[in-house]
C-alpha cells in the first residue's frame, strides 16, 4: 500500500489527513491524481492547483515522478507558520 498524506485544506477535502492506496504497478504523481479525481472530482482538481507541491518519501518531486507501493506521497498546499 502507498500512503497518501493531505495537509492543510486538502485534508478537509480528502476527509482526513491520511489515505492508503494499493498500487499494483508504479504510477506517476499525475496518474495517481487521476485515480483520485475519478473518485472525487473536487479533490482531484484541488490536487493539480499549480501551488500544490508533492513530496515523495520526504523529498519534493514533480508530477512525472513514479510512486510505488510502500511509498509515502504527501500533497503540500501553500504553507503558513509562525
Amino acid at each position, binding site marked *: 500500500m502507498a500512503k497518501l498524506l493531505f495537509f*492543510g485544506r486538502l*485534508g*478537509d477535502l480528502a476527509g482526513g*489527513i491520511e489515505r492508503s492506496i494499493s498500487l499494483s504497478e508504479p504510477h506517476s504523481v499525475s496518474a495517481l491524481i487521476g485515480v483520485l479525481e475519478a473518485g472525487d472530482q473536487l479533490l482531484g482538481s484541488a490536487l493539480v492547483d499549480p501551488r500544490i507541491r508533492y513530496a515523495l518519501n*520526504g523529498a519534493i518531486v514533480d508530477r512525472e515522478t513514479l510512486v510505488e507501493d510502500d511509498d509515502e506521497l*504527501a500533497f503540500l498546499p501553500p*504553507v*503558513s*507558520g*509562525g
Partner: protein
Amino acid sequence: MLRRVTIAAAPFDPEAEIAAFRKALDDSGAIVTFTGQVRPSNGGGSVSTLSLQHYPGMTERGIEAMLDQVAERWPLEAVLVIHRVGDMGPHDPIVLVATASAHRRAAFEAADFLMDYLKSRALFWKSETSASGKLWIEPRDEDYADAARWDASPGGR
C-alpha cells in the same frame, strides 16, 4: 553553532526557554528573541482556536537545512527554534526564535531571517476556527516579500 529545534505539541514557556538559552552561552554579548503568539482578534471576528499542522520529519529537516544556511551566513554562538503544533488559544505562544552572537547585527539578522522562513516557507499549515467556521490561513503578501529579501543578498542585507 549550538542549535536546538523543537516541534512542541504542548504549550511552552518562552521566558523559561530564553533563560535556559542565555545561560548556556559563553562568549555572546547579543541575544535576540522573537516570540509569536495568538492574537485575540485577527482582523475580523474573535478567534477561538488556532491550529497548526506539520509534516513530522520533513518539517524538522527543512528547519535544520535552514539552520545550516544560518550557520554559514552569520557568526552565531547559538540558535533556538521552538514551534507549536496543535490547538492554541488567545495569547498562547506559537513560535520562539532565539539567536546569540558576539555583536548584535548578526543576532538581529539571523532571527529576522528565520522568522521569514518559518512564516512563509517552513512546512506548517495554520487554520483559525471562529464563530464563522474554520479558515485556512496563507501567508500575507508581506510575508512572501519579507522572505524574498534574503534571496537577493547572500551576504545578508
